[in-house]
């Protein structure tokens, strides 16, 4: 093994320089790995049955391989007292890359998914405008549109790790109220300009056409900045679970403000103080006071592999990979630790759009078979650094479940079992 291919350890417990991910670097390290989990084929390779008979023809709407049928959302059970209410979570640990397929985008509904006929749906802008306007779905399709990749994260995402004892669950259960898609739609500023907001306008108050008529208030400055009325999700009409025929999309902010099934924007001089911005989605502090309108999602990252409830089947090289994001801008840096935060190494971040989107990071790791604690720590373009759990917890009442963005710790046992822990 020549020195060029020797792994270059950059932090404790086996972390290897990210340059080994590039070019031929890994070929050399591969030789020190213990080999395939299944062991090498020993007999003759034969031609498989599927190479000897024609497969199915084209279909009108594609579906995953039956062998990938376990790549599914983690859906909660039905609610007996609030029909249609609940969540399903994106299986982050089963996905690679940064885009969430539409069928796997997380859901949060407050009164189920309405079946809306776009021909009968109306979107109205009124309140503090010169002329109240009503738009049909067809109307909106005729406007100039923008396409942008954005993450969407529920304010309560990862709240599972605010409880006193770390649950033995997986990355989807803890962090799966997070997805990322390309959203295409009409800039809200275009439509607000058409209606003509008046001088006293300072907020928009938006409601959906679901049975809960869920509502949220958003400062006018944000509404005029980068908010869109999304009509397409990853290129196809947005899914019913995401607000078909149209949703508000508020980049970087807690998912709840991106009101689905959007039907009303009332321009106002003050917020409406809807139930979901007073009773819920407010952040309780240690002294019993609360923060209200805490919109942007903080800088955050999570290692999706290896992650909770996985098992490392062999010693040797593993790729540590995960996603990082920030509601304040782009991800600038992700560091990885394999020794519970004593030493850190910079991960490689994949190129691509990163402003208010998921970034994919990777780093090679030589697992010796010794116990390890894996962590990732993200820094964004405003130099916000993802906090440790103790620091985050100290800032809030122990009952607060919103806006948890602390560092995730996964322990790896000598047997290779990966577990959610507080470290």
């Amino acid at each position: 093994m020549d020195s060029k291919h020797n792994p270059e350890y950059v932090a404790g417990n086996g972390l290897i320089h990210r340059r080994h991910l590039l070019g031929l670097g890994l070929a050399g390290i591969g030789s020190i790995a213990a080999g395939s989990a299944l062991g090498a084929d020993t007999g003759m390779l034969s031609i498989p049955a599927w190479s000897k008979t024609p497969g199915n023809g084209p279909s009108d709407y594609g579906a995953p391989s039956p062998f990938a049928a376990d790549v599914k959302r983690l859906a909660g059970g039905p609610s007996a007292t609030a029909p249609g209410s609940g969540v399903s979570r994106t299986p982050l640990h089963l996905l690679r890359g940064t885009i969430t397929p539409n069928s796997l985008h997380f859901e949060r509904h407050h009164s189920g998914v309405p079946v809306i006929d776009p021909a009968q749906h109306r979107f109205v802008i009124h309140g503090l405008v010169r002329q109240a306007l009503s738009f049909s779905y067809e109307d909106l399709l005729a406007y100039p549109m923008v396409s942008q990749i954005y993450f969407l994260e529920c304010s309560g995402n990862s709240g599972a790790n605010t409880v006193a004892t770390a649950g033995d669950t997986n990355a989807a259960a803890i962090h799966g109220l997070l997805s990322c898609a390309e959203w295409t739609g009409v800039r809200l500023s275009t439509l607000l300009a058409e209606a003509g907001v008046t001088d006293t306008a300072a907020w928009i108050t938006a409601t959906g056409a679901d049975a809960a008529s869920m509502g949220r208030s958003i400062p006018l400055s944000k509404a005029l900045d980068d908010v869109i009325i999304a009509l397409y999700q990853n290129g196809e009409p947005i899914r019913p679970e995401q607000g078909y025929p149209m949703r508000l999309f508020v980049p970087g902010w807690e998912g709840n403000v991106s009101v689905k099934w959007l039907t009303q924007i009332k321009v106002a001089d003050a917020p409406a103080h809807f139930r979901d911005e007073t009773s819920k989605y407010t952040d309780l502090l240690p002294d019993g006071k609360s923060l209200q309108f805490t919109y942007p999602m903080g800088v955050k990252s999570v290692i999706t592999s290896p992650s909770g409830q996985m098992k490392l089947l062999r010693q040797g090289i593993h790729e540590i990979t995960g996603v990082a994001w920030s509601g304040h801008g782009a991800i600038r840096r992700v560091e990885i630790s394999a020794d519970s935060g004593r030493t850190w190494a910079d991960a490689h971040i994949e190129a691509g759009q990163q402003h208010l989107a998921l970034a994919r990071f990777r780093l090679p790791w030589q697992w010796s078979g010794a116990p390890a604690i894996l962590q990732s720590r993200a820094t964004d373009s405003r130099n916000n650094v993802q906090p440790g759990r103790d620091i985050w917890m100290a800032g809030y009442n122990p009952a607060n479940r919103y806006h948890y963005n602390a560092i995730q710790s996964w322990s790896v046992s000598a047997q290779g079992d990966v577990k959610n822990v507080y470290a």
Partner: protein
Amino acid sequence: MFMRNAVSIFVTAAGVVALNVASIGLAAEAPANPVALGSAISEAQLADWDLIVAPDGQNLPEGSGTAAQGQAVYQQQCAACHGAAGEGASGSPALVGGSVSTTPPLLTVGSYWPHASTLFDYVRRAMPPTAPKSLSNTEVYQVTAYVLHLHGVIAEDFVLDKNTLPAVQMPNREGFTDVSGN
């Protein structure tokens, strides 16, 4: 035939949008907004449809109600889930009682919500979950008064209407800091 406009939109790093409209048609003055398809509608047309009630109470409907009148509505429409005295049950939150300063805190309409308008607004748009928007405005006033009375916020004979509701002082009114400007 319509004039055709080639529209290109640039998004700068800071997220600022620049609209560049190059007119291919004959007209010299391209409209600032190349598409304007919204149909005029009046606030009067929205009177039954706009359910938003903000703390200023401006959009509160006609009608009124007292807690005494609301007791029957509550027992019929709400108690099965939220408990006879608003104490909550499995799967349905408590509406009254509790405190923000116990461990753990119990956040209810009475102990937590800063504005009475939110109770009217939410019950009218979302409760009961099996039949939202099935209560009349009068019933919403009545049951709102009843829930407020259960927590001791208003007296049993206090008449809740569009004038009195915005003035109701909620116990945790000063408990929130608006950080939207941060």
